[in-house]
């Protein structure tokens, strides 16, 4: 499996695969090949629960091709619990800002071809 396929497999289980630098301990999304902090290449896999709170988001009404059938939907950036890491994803069924205040609890809930990483409110 490629590094992207591995991340997708974990996302399908509601988890997030991350890479922890074996030299300095800094945590990255698993698509990183070198450490952002120390530049070294060795990583160990750390699987996160994929839970966190909404850092920012938008509700899209003019969509790229393939997403028209979902409008309005949200593109969200999730701040993961107990780490500096954030992950972006697709959230269906969001129509107004009242539906999704910044800070709302949310979780990775899957991955779908055509929508990418799916995030749902908890």
């Amino acid at each position, binding site marked *: 499996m490629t590094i992207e396929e591995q991340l997708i497999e974990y996302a399908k289980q509601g988890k997030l695969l991350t890479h922890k630098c074996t030299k300095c301990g800094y945590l990255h*999304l698993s698509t990183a090949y070198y450490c952002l902090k120390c530049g070294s290449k060795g990583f160990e896999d750390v699987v996160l629960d994929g839970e966190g709170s909404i850092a920012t988001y*938008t509700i899209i009404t003019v969509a*790229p091709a393939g997403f028209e059938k979902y409008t309005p939907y949200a*593109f969200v950036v999730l701040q993961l619990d107990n780490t500096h890491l954030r992950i972006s994803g697709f959230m269906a069924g969001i129509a107004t800002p009242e539906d999704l205040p*910044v800070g709302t609890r949310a979780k990775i809930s899957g991955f779908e071809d055509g929508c990418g990483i799916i995030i749902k409110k908890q």
Partner: protein
Amino acid sequence: MTFVEKVCVLGAGSTKYGKLAESIADITTQASVLAIENAGIDPKEIKASYISNVFGVADKQVHLGPVLMSRLGIPDKPSLTIESACGSGSVSFREAYANVAAGFYDCLVVTGVEKVTHTGTEWTTTYFAYCSDFFYEGQAGASFPGLFASMARAYLTEFGATEEDFARVAVKNHDNGFLNPKAHMQKKITIDDVMKSPVVASPLKLYDCCPFSDGASSVILCSEKFAKEHGGDYIEVIGSGRGGSPAALQGREQMTTIPSTKIAAADAYKMAGITAKDIDFAEVHDCFTIAEIVDTEDLGFFEKGKGVQAVREGRTNLNSDISINPSGGLKSKGHPIGATGVGQVVEVFDQLTGRAGARTVKDAKIGLTHNFGATGASCAVHIFQSV
């Protein structure tokens, strides 16, 4: 760094920005000819071309350089086509600058172009999303308005700005663009027009967004020696900086700042030996209203979080504290993405050589251009001085 040559802009020209009927090859050539004639040079004096373009494939023409050179009657001269999303123009300008500064060439044509409007809103939105970190962003349904809307939401939350504040940026840039005959949207608008325009990606509405535009811009870049021998008006490039940011918004420590802008600006100010306070006017990357506010903070014109107050107080209006986007910016002048960074240089050239007409920034001596790709994943800043 030691440079062999001082670098100057000797001529500049743009097609009108908007929905254009001509082919991408045609408008590339038209803009280049305008710049050549404006500089008063013979095309055979051009040693090479730098072409910036992103979606040539949409008009069935990539590898634009040799097509341009053939049409200019200099097919034997080398060319390079450069893609860095919406920052392609300034990145190409930087590479051209470096080559003249190093003494490789004494005279270049630098032309940016885009031709996309014929593909329609849905497909242009789709193509533009390919400029994001697609695995994380485009694949999850992020459009470009959506990514900047995510920055806008973060800014609203963090600094207590309002959507009316964003609207003020659009109104100001349309006021400027109204005075620019080459502008795509040469019309004035009101705060009410912006607030009542349809939502594209909340909190951004249609009039918070720049239009999709076709267009081409071109400048003649040369050594100071070449410029002096030729006579005529020219301006000097006194600073050039580049920077990068994490490709996806999720990877940034703050989502209300663009790191590449700060890095590129610091580089350019250092090279020029000046600070933000010395800039008389700036053409900044206002693809969305929120972007201009963030840009003016990251470029050091205002403290972080204070850019919005500056807009409220009219401090960025034409001929106020610092004229921001006298051309009308991407918002009103238009945003043919491969051309934009070069088009900003055209505006600075026109301003510093007395060709800007009703939108002239009075007594301007130093102008800055700021242009980035995607959500600022790549950025270039240039500083120019009248001679």
